[in-house]
């Protein structure tokens, strides 16, 4: 018995070996990327951007063969159908360059957290990211993205893209011609509606009698509200529409900005002035209008985003549904929507200014700056392949929402799904929330103030926007963007 006792020396020896083993295991998980070559000359991006390497400076623009020693590339994106389409699309790249491209999918709830924490550690877990449009400012000024201005309009065929998508998904600061992403998945808000109800002779007659105009796809927001009012019949559990009201992240802000832009107002000016812009007369009217739509949503709609709106539509509870185009495939599918055959789609109508805009969704694909030069080169070559017209055409065929105008405007694309024509029209008129590094603080304020006014019925539109303008101004000043 005594022979098996653990003596102090043996214990210390085992402990030391275990410790060394653990340290080696922790360090040896992944081959450390080689240090960037000295040739990578960083360029200082304007607008307070940190020194960032350019795609050309990493040797990517030399047009050399893709990869070299690189045999696989990884892309981080959110977990949703377009990521599956992308995974399908990039299989072709194996035949083109002999490189396996893997799309790593992260649930939406943790997508941003995972990306930015990895970037804080200058991580190299992925070579590219399909990042949210609002991340542009933060990721470019933090030095997380590689600037691709040098190749954007040449190798990446930037001129072939819908101009609004270039501004929204690629450029930061806006209007400077500095590009950090290739617009990959275009998306914006549009509408689904019940064609069967719109085309019902009895409904058409009753509508005409009440509003003295034909019941058809609305051309203005005022018409849309009338239609919503007309179809709101609580005794039949039928309501006019479903809109974004959720307080989390950006839902109600995105819903409101559909009308804000169409009323001719904006979040601010390109030089970050918000007072008198965000709380202008037009903006106040737009907010009052958005609140008036809330009267025609079903009960229990105080916290709705894309999933809830789609659910209400497929349950036959609402006649019109505001949603991102990316979520319309579920409405066109008979297995998930019993009204799929009777569902039509239209883009945002015009506001009193005669203008029509749509809140932007979607993402651009960016190169991560911390990967080594070989991987940067391989990833850049991949982007060039991705930007080709043929690749974009196939991307659209698979279900991806291309931003390539040639594909968007083709009859083949417009007829491919019942909502593609509305999507192509919408992509020409998208606008977005701030994409500055402090966007999340500004978003938090807009979410709170809009929810307080629209859903909780507290205060007036003017008070909500005045307070928002003051807080946004403070944030922009604190960030050094507004003097």
């Amino acid at each position: 018995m005594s022979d098996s006792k653990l003596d102090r020396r043996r214990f210390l020896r085992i402990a030391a070996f275990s410790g060394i083993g653990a340290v080696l295991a922790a360090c040896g998980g992944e081959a450390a990327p080689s240090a960037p070559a000295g040739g990578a000359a960083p360029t200082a991006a304007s607008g307070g951007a940190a020194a960032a390497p350019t795609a050309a400076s990493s040797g990517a623009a030399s047009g050399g063969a893709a990869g070299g020693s690189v045999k696989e590339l990884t892309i981080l994106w959110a977990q949703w159908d377009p990521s599956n389409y992308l995974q399908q699309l990039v299989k072709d790249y194996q035949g083109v360059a002999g490189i396996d491209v893997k799309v790593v999918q992260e649930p939406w709830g943790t997508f941003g957290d995972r990306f930015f924490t990895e970037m804080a550690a200058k991580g190299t877990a992925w070579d590219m990211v399909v990042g949210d449009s609002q991340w542009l400012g933060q990721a470019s000024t933090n030095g997380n993205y590689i600037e691709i201005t040098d190749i954007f309009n040449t190798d990446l065929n930037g001129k072939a893209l819908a101009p609004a998508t270039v501004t929204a998904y690629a450029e930061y600061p806006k209007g400077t011609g500095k590009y950090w992403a290739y617009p990959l998945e275009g998306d914006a808000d549009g509408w689904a509606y019940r064609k069967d109800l719109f085309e019902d002779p009895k409904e058409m007659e009753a509508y005409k009698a009440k509003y003295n105009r034909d019941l058809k796809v609305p051309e203005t927001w005022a018409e849309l509200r009338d239609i919503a009012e007309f179809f709101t019949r609580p005794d039949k559990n039928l309501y006019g529409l479903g809109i974004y009201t959720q307080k989390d992240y950006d839902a109600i802000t995105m819903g409101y900005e559909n009308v804000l832009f169409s009323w001719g107002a904006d979040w601010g000016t390109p030089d970050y002035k918000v007072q008198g812009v965000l709380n202008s007369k037009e903006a106040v009217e737009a907010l009052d209008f958005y609140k008036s739509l809330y009267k025609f949503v079903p009960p229990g709609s105080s916290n709705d985003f894309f999933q809830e709106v789609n659910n209400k539509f497929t349950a036959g509870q609402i006649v019109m549904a505001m949603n991102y185009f990316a979520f319309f495939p579920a409405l066109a599918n008979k297995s998930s929507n019993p009204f799929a055959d009777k569902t039509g789609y239209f883009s945002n109508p015009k506001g009193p200014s005669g203008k029509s805009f749509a809140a932007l969704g979607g993402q651009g694909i960016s190169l991560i700056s911390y990967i080594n030069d070989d991987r940067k080169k391989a990833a850049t070559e991949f982007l060039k392949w991705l930007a080709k017209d043929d690749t974009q055409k196939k991307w659209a065929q698979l279900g991806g929402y291309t931003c390539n105008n040639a594909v968007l405007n083709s009859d083949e694309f417009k007829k491919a799904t019942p909502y593609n024509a509305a999507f192509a029209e919408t992509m020409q008129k998208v606008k977005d929330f701030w994409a500055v590094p402090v966007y999340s603080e500004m978003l938090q304020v807009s979410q709170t103030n809009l929810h307080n006014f629209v859903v909780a019925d507290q205060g007036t539109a003017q008070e909500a926007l005045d307070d928002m303008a003051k807080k946004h101004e403070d944030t922009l000043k604190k960030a050094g963007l507004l003097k």
Partner: protein
Amino acid sequence: MYGAKDIESRTGRARQPAALSDAALKRLFLWPTLGLLIAFNLFPLLYSLYLSFTDYSAISSRAPQWIGLQNYRDILNDGQLWIYFRNTGKYVVLSVAFETLVGFGMALLLRRKFFGSGIITTLILIPMMCSPVVVGLFWKMMYNPGYGIFNYLLGFPAGRGPDWLSSPKLALWAVVIVDVWMWAPYVMLLCLAGLSAIPDYLYEAAEIDRAGPLYTFWRITLPQVAPLLLIAVLFRTIEAFKTFDLVMGLTGGGPGDTTELVAVDLYRLAFLGQFNTGKSSALAYIVLVIITGVSNIYVRYLNKLKEG
């Protein structure tokens, strides 16, 4: 005769290195635990205290910059946060009060054994075993004014009842109701343990003295159960102060600010795109100080009860 040395040489023990002493063995068990506690409790606690005095953001590659009490000043001067503290206070008081009343009431009903009392007790305990997120999601359906069962049980026709989660006046009550449904059984469980520990002779003596039921309750039952009841109240107060998942599942903090509790705001500040790590650490410490203060009051009262 053999000496001790002879025995050692025969058994070979003299050649063996010394075995671990009792003291060394104690340290062997103690050190890993201490190491884990320091690494995962003490270090994060102290590091987050340090971070609360900096402008650090977890997603920034910039090192933390010391800004002194700025975060604390910002928090305490932020009118919006005081609204969240007020909401939290209201929520804690309402939910803990009702949980105590309902839990203690159920314990009194179930203290005497009757046919089926075992299964009833088990069924009552089910809500506290459910995940708060799941509870939040299914109560959201139950509260739905169109098809939810809650309004139906209250006697409202479908679609005519109040919209519990969208109404600024009812939303906080809606969350309180769910919290009481979920956690009153926990109070009941502790109270049942306290009630079963009361010696029968106390009641027998009271009966001999012809004490009435109310007198018996105030002078025997309540004082005897009080220590355990207070522990239940203490735990529930701490938990209610930290409520996050239930609110996110039910209302997301809305409508407006009406159910935005401090823990929910802390989450938004620390994550959700903002990653304001320094400020959120400061807020977490303010919450910690409040909870510690409240807990101390309870503990002192509990000690008084024990002494008394």
